[in-house]
């Protein structure tokens, strides 16, 4: 009986170790990364036969906490300032901030809050790709959205110190949203602005306290 219990425990441990997918790096345990780098960027891309529009924000902040050995437990959120989004045309930026579009005064932030992490693929010892499901909020409307995220972990070194003290985490993510899901309804959607917006997130974070 004891042998069966021992074997079961060992098997469970082996299975859980196999299921736990994380980085194979020097760092261990739970790490919290702050994204405060001014080069962090979120791109919004709309394409229609009439016009391609790229909106970019460099006012992106956030924080994630993850277990190095098992990224499935990742928690955190990213916040984008609506007023900071530029499309290269000042007049269009004004329209974007208006009540007809993103209502920047009433809803100054776009947020993505991580809920769960799935489909984890270890690409390299320090690089992982995963599907991150989170609550995406625009204009005060929240919708569950899936982002394909690549996380790259760099242990602190002379090279990483050029950016920030501590270990660094690179986040490259892509997600797609529909404007109508967030009550952004406008006559020119489908003509000059696409209903489907592709969002690309590029972040550098440091775990220095």
């Amino acid at each position, binding site marked *: 009986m004891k042998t069966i219990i021992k074997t079961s425990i060992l098997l469970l441990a082996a299975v859980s170790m196999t299921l736990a997918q994380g980085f194979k790096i020097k760092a261990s345990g739970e790490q919290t990364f702050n994204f405060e780098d001014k080069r962090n960027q979120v791109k919004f891309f709309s394409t229609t036969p009439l016009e391609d529009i790229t909106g970019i924000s460099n006012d992106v902040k956030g924080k994630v906490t993850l277990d190095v050995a098992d990224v499935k437990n990742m928690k955190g959120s990213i916040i984008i300032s609506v007023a900071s989004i530029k499309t290269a045309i000042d007049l269009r930026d004004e329209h974007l901030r208006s009540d007809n579009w993103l209502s920047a005064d009433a809803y100054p932030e776009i947020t993505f809050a991580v809920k769960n992490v799935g489909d984890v693929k270890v690409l390299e010892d320090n690089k992982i790709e995963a599907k991150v499901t989170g609550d995406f909020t625009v204009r005060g409307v929240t919708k569950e959205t899936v982002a394909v995220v690549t996380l790259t972990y760099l242990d602190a070194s002379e090279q990483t110190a050029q950016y920030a003290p501590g270990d*660094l985490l690179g986040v490259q993510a892509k997600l797609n949203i529909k404007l109508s899901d967030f009550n952004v309804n406008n006559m020119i959607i489908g003509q000059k602005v696409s209903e489907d917006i592709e969002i690309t997130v590029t972040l550098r974070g440091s775990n220095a306290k």
Partner: protein
Amino acid sequence: MNEKQKYVLTAALILIAAVFLWWLASGGEILSKDGVWVETELSELDKALGLEPQKVYQEKFILGLLPHTAVISGIIVVVSAILFFTFKSKKTKEKK
């Protein structure tokens, strides 16, 4: 409308359609821009962090429809109009 005028009109319409397609294929932007996005080169550390190149905003005024579409289409319209009326006059004179 005589035969030559029809040719002028058809040629003008084909040329304007071609210019429109060219404009559409090159982005089809209607509004003029106050700036452009320029892609930056990735640093070695950014590459190590698996990041994609970023874009930085640079102030630069770029006309939307102009100069390509509107100028070329305008020239086509003016030349076609001149030819159209020239051929009309010639025919009128021939009739007289």
